[in-house]
């Protein structure tokens, strides 16, 4: 354990917290700089990930066909990232760089032949696979990229409500609560009552977006991880979606927004984690993108140069 992680773990156990003092915007800590909205209630991050590595089983590359053994091929390595309450963190990286894998790994969901290693704390408590599974149904919600994640054969309302918890009477009460909550959310997000009875393929792009958001909000989570929520939406809808996220964060929740769109990230997020070559190379406040001198990693500076207002100085390696 490095000094840093030990210090962090100490904080998590309630020992002398290293985050006891207030942070200032731009101040460096835990490999990252803070933003105005970043808060540390309870003296810890809402979500803290340290040394997260993800590998998939593959054949050794370079070896002759029949000699190639099966080995774990790393896809993400040594990712450290933290999300505070009240803030919106954008994870920015090229398409296909493994950002979606990162999101699922943080939530402890692995596919066949996938190995996840690392340390994850939520609200100051270290989590294992079982802990993450509990969190998935209560504290952390995921918003997928597209409506194709919904069951094509089930009506939207029932899917938004999800599975009631508990047994017997408690289960019935939870089901009733979910129904009420779903109606309330639909009303809030301008989804008509008839939408409940539609099937996913009958939803328009904007409706689908809001339905997925409702899915996430039914359980009243504290952290929402959203995977590329805006592609395919027109500008007004994209803005509306991001406005919804913003109000969730302002209400004390936290958002981890995964996107390939640096402009979008800078427009709405409080902080940006730059994802490159299978890891987070830099986690910094949006304010740091005011000038390349404030950015530490060469790739972040490339991103800065790639912004339209900075004359596309490095066009060969733009993120998009």
């Amino acid at each position, binding site marked *: 354990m490095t000094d840093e992680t030990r210090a962090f773990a100490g904080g998590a156990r309630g020992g002398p917290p290293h985050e006891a003092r207030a942070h200032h915007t731009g101040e460096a800590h835990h490999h990252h700089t803070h933003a105005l909205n970043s808060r540390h209630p309870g003296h810890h991050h809402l979500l803290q990930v340290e040394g997260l590595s993800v590998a*998939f089983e593959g054949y050794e590359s370079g070896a002759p066909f029949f000699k190639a053994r099966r080995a774990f091929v790393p896809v993400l390595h040594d990712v450290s990232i933290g999300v505070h309450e009240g803030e919106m963190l954008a994870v920015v990286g090229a398409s296909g760089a493994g950002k979606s894998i990162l999101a699922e790994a943080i939530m402890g969901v692995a596919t*066949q032949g996938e190995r996840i290693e690392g340390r994850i704390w939520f609200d100051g408590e270290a989590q294992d696979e079982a802990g993450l599974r509990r969190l998935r149904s209560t504290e952390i919600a995921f918003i*997928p990229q597209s409506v194709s994640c919904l069951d094509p054969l089930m009506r939207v309302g029932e899917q938004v409500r999800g599975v009631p918890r508990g047994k017997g009477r408690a289960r019935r009460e939870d089901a009733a609560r979910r129904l009420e909550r779903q109606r309330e959310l639909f009303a809030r997000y301008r989804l008509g009552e008839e939408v409940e009875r539609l099937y996913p393929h009958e939803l328009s792009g904007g409706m689908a977006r809001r339905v997925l958001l409702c899915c996430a909000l039914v359980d009243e989570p504290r952290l929402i991880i959203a995977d590329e929520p805006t592609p395919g939406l027109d500008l007004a809808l994209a803005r509306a979606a991001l406005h919804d996220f913003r109000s969730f964060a302002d209400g004390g929740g936290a958002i981890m927004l995964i996107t390939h769109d640096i402009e979008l990230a800078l427009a709405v997020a409080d902080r940006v984690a730059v994802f490159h070559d299978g890891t987070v190379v830099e986690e910094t406040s949006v304010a740091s993108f005011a000038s390349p001198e404030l950015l530490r990693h060469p790739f972040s500076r490339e991103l800065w140069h790639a912004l339209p207002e900075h004359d596309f100085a490095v066009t060969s390696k733009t993120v998009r």
Partner: protein
Amino acid sequence: MLVVVVSFVVFLLVDLSPVDPVQANVGQAASLSMSEAKRAQLEAYWGVGEPLLERYGNWLWGLLHGDLGTSLRFDEPVAQVIAERAGASFALLSIAWVGSGLLGFVLGVVAGMAHRRWPDRLIRGWCFAMTSIPSFWLALIALMVFAVALGWFPIGFATPVGVAQADVTWADVAHHLALPAICLTLVGVAPVALHTREKVIEFEAGEVADFCRLRGEGPWQGFWRHGLRNVALPAITLQCASVGEIFGGAVLVEEVFSYPGLGQAAVTAGLGSDVCLLAGIAVVTSLLVFGGNFAADVLYGVVDPRMRSARGAAGASKEGPLASLVDRPEDYDVPNASTGEVGRGGTV
């Protein structure tokens, strides 16, 4: 349309046969001794000397009027033979069809959910073994063990030998039906189970199941809520489409058990050069297959909301070329090495 083409092919094949229809129809001895009038009548029926298409037209015309000719072996109108036989076969086929469908579906779900763990290995191994076992051998072994050695079941036939038709009880019928039905069910389980298993694995690797897990639903919870209906649809479709295969098994099983069904009649007709009966059975079974496929299509249209709103859109389950070739599930998923997203979307 398809049925017409199939019936033409059937007629063509029967017609190609080197046996003289008249002689074959009445047998060597009878052919010599029968009267000129009878011979002329038969020749007229078979249209000896007429062109193929005309004969086919006549046959098809008769077919449409329910006249399938007269069976030589049973000396009755073919339609009547088929109707009698179909009754016995119907019980056998429907039990095997429903039984293998249910059992296969359950086994496939269990195997798919336990992907690569021991229940999966066990069920998959058993299914591969079952697909390698000829159904007639399975029937022979069952007959040998349960009927000959243990004496639990009768050795054959649909009713007790030497008992008048009126005295046969339902218990007798069930007793005679049991062993062939069990054999036929076991034969039919493997394809459904393997297909279901593959669909379950596909579902579990797909976005919908992923989202269920990300919402904190347990594996069985997610499957019960979403997987079941998504997987049941292709399974029922396959089962509808496999009516023909079940019938194929029935031919062999009925032959072993001397069970007087349609399958046994087909074998008798083929061996005895009973052309009318063979052609009739072929047409009837092709209708059976057609009916199965039609039912599957209708079912899809009724159950799947996507098909309901957008009829005629591309089929819901597009399978890769190898999926149709290896009619059994792939043992392993493919890593999609060309993109950075290893392991995603790499299902075959």
